[in-house]
């Protein structure tokens, strides 16, 4: 489209958001990386060297010489960080799997529902997403507490004789992540299943294929794109999750989002927290790029 492609209007449409994202999304990462190479100082800002154009060229070169990878070396030497990364990935992985196991039957059931009901069901899945994340996590504290609602009801119907200790354990974190991210898993799987041509299943069944086999051979492979998208949408943010481990997890729970927060707010060690963030970003860069390619491909198809 030539007329639209060359006007000032169209240039502006591209340039304004582009520059905004460069300024407030990309450049901040460069700054994070640069601060991860500095050392802590008792000053404002609490790191050195601080670059300033007033120092002149030689001053800047001097400052560059002061930068070092010491913080990254420090991360490898202290087992705390390594364990925190590992345990974040483990917790996020287990939670993603649990979310998938719970979300798939729901999405499948929704896709099979009478056509007139589907918009309502879809709305009901999206609705909790609009209520505050913090509130949804907070709601679980009252449920999972030793004297909380879950234990009260289980005790009263006699399933258990002693309260279960769930709050402040990893189980509480799994529940929190599954609960908070469930809609992100349901929606892509549902949209993949909804588009599926049901006559394929009918054909398979007419040819004598048992329903379970038909599901694994036809339905599941066709919904795979939705499953992968859902897993990405849950796994990537869950690795860096802070609120859920902080409110539901115990003091012994190690998650990198929490470690980063503490390093920054309690220890006030900016360079080390910048290094922690850089490594976390490096860990997540592969799944993030994968997710972006998937999105871009989906756009191409839609065009």
């Amino acid at each position, binding site marked *: 489209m030539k007329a639209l492609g060359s006007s000032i209007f169209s240039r502006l449409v591209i340039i304004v958001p*582009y520059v905004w994202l460069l300024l407030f999304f990309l450049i901040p990462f460069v700054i994070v990386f640069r601060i991860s190479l500095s050392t802590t100082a008792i000053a404002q800002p609490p790191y050195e060297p601080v670059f300033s154009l007033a120092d002149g060229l030689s001053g800047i070169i001097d400052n560059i010489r002061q930068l070092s990878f010491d913080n990254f070396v420090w991360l490898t030497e202290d087992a705390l960080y390594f364990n925190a990364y590992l345990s974040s990935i483990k917790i996020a992985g287990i939670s993603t799997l649990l979310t998938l196991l719970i979300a798939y039957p729901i999405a499948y059931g929704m896709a099979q529902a009478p056509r007139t009901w589907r918009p309502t069901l879809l709305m009901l899945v999206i609705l909790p997403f609009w209520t505050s994340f913090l*509130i949804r996590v907070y709601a679980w504290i009252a449920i999972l507490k030793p004297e909380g609602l879950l234990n009260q009801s289980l005790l009263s119907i006699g399933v258990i004789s002693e309260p279960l200790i769930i709050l402040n354990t990893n189980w509480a974190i799994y529940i929190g992540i599954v609960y908070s991210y469930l809609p992100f898993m349901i929606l892509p799987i549902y949209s993949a299943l909804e588009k599926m041509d049901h006559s394929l299943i009918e054909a398979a069944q007419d040819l004598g294929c048992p329903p379970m086999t038909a599901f694994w051979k036809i339905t599941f492979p066709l919904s795979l794109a939705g499953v992968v998208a859902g897993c990405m949408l849950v796994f990537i943010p869950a690795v860096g999750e802070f609120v859920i481990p902080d409110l539901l997890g115990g003091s012994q729970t190690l998650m990198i989002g929490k470690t980063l927060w503490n390093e920054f707010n309690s220890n006030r060690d900016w360079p080390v927290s910048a290094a922690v963030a850089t490594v976390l970003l490096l860990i997540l860069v592969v799944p993030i790029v994968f997710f972006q390619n998937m999105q871009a491909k989906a756009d191409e198809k839609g065009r």
Partner: protein
Amino acid sequence: MTRWSRFNIVSVVLGFAFLYLPIVLLVIFSFNESKLVTVWAGFSTKWYVSLFNNQGLMDAAWVTIRVALLSATVATVLGTMAALSLVRYTRFRGRMLFSGMVYAPLVMPEVITGLSLLLLFVAVGFDRGFWTVTLAHITLTMCFVAVVVQSRLLSFDRSIEEAALDLGATPLRTFFEVTLPIIAPAVFSGWVLAFTLSLDDLVIASFTSGPGATTLPMKIYSQVRLGVTPEINAACTLLIALVAIGVVIASIVTKQRELQRQRDEQAAFAGR
């Protein structure tokens, strides 16, 4: 419908019970007479009264609403522009980088976004407060707006736009008189999404906020760490009610616009 089997019904019902039960319980216990949030002691609205007398919470709520209104509005403009560039201009320099920057914030852990924005503000010597939170929220939410608007633009019949351009309308006029009215429902739901995301955010706000600009989630968070109280339940219930009203209004507006459009189309066909 034979496909809607018992297994399907049970899984959907259980799933929705899981999604809604915690929120319902939270709302119920905000009306509890007792200070405990787990033992029911009779109906009372006293926590709402004490909530409105809590000046700190009220101030935080006011800051949050101002940040959310401003950031959602700017984010909607920027996000719509980003969506237009992604859908309409398939070839421009650095498009790969651009689409990457639009999608990455959607999944980026909030601690990273928050920390990096804070370090930017410190590096340029920008005082932290109302404006830094607003800037941070614009950056995050514009990407969500972009994705919402983009999906509408993809299913958009471009021949109408081309017709307007062929008839001599400038691109600017074409956008405001043809494109925008058609994508308006998506732009509006993008705004609502941006508004609620901003209202909700704790992590990024904590990093980028300064003295005097404590937002409601920050306030709630600091109180939750001290213990669960019915007063917080009451605050949460009000927030849920606010969002629910917004969503209901949004869906009514969308539906009416859709009906109006259908009527217009039918009228246009009948007129020929």
